[in-house]
């Protein structure tokens, strides 16, 4: 169906331009769109009439599907995930879906497995899978802490 036969986000094959593009988590988009909408409310009586359908539908979507609402928490989520040298795409999938277990995280972002095995090869001491899972587990714990204190 897709024009690019190769495209497969599960393996992080999404085309170079998108791999380098900055992705945004739902919660970040919610902050941006809500801010834009508030600005419109100040200048117009009927702000919903001023925005496109795409804007309206997306705003509704990100409001419902944001795991973090507080702007500080949103910033912290990106900060924490950035420590794990993830691709932008992987970072945002994790921030959007908030997996609770290592198995779920790998199911949601299969490419993190490949990523950790690349690191593994680079090390003089071969790190086993258990170690990789540990790193993922720490990341998930850090994320759930933000949620708890939000």
């Amino acid at each position, binding site marked *: 169906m897709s024009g690019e036969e190769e495209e497969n986000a599960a393996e992080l094959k999404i085309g170079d331009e998108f791999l380098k593009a900055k992705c945004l988590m739902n919660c970040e988009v919610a902050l941006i769109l809500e801010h834009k909408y508030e600005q419109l409310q100040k200048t117009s009586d009927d702000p919903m009439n001023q925005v496109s359908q*795409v804007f309206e539908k997306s705003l509704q979507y990100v409001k419902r599907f944001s795991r973090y609402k507080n702007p500080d928490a949103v910033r912290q989520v990106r900060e924490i995930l950035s420590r794990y040298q993830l691709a932008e795409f992987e970072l945002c999938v994790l921030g*959007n879906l908030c997996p609770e277990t290592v198995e779920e995280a790998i199911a*949601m972002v299969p490419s993190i497995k490949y990523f950790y095995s690349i690191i593994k090869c680079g090390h003089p001491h071969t790190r086993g899978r258990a170690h990789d899972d540990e790193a993922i587990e720490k990341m998930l714990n850090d994320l759930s802490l933000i949620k708890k204190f939000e």
Partner: protein
Amino acid sequence: MFLKVKLPWNVVIPAENLDPKGLILQRSIVLHLLDDFACRKATKDLGYFLAVMTLESIGEGKVRQNTGEVLFPVVFSGITFKIFRGEILEGTVHKILKHGVFLRCGPIENIYLSCTKMPDYRYMQAESPVFLSDKHPKIEKDVVVRFIVIGTKWLEAEREFQALVSLEGDFLGPVSE
């Protein structure tokens, strides 16, 4: 996935909107850009256009001989939404048919989950139709479902995307909020 993209764009300003004072010119460039952006709706490459964030640069204007309009090449950053094959997303069920359900995700309404891609689920005709399973929560209108994208299609005439999705995989299916 929502993307922050940098886009080159051509903005055409009618002669009467030109002003020797740069400020008003800049304003009409931004206004035209916002209009164009909303009208364009989506492109095959970048997906749906949501919002303009910042105007990065305005190039030198070129006068169009016939009309007197001036064309300004500009670069701005904006937010788009594009759906990728293999991506895992969450969406809301908005229509249930005998052979599958339609979901809404971001600006896209035509996300089809066929009953052949819903293992263990069977259709049940009731006052409001529903898909039932012995092992998993039921799928009815307004339920949030986590799915994987197995195919996407760009419809040039409608400037819309369609997607085929599946529940075949671990940790996919209805999500309790």
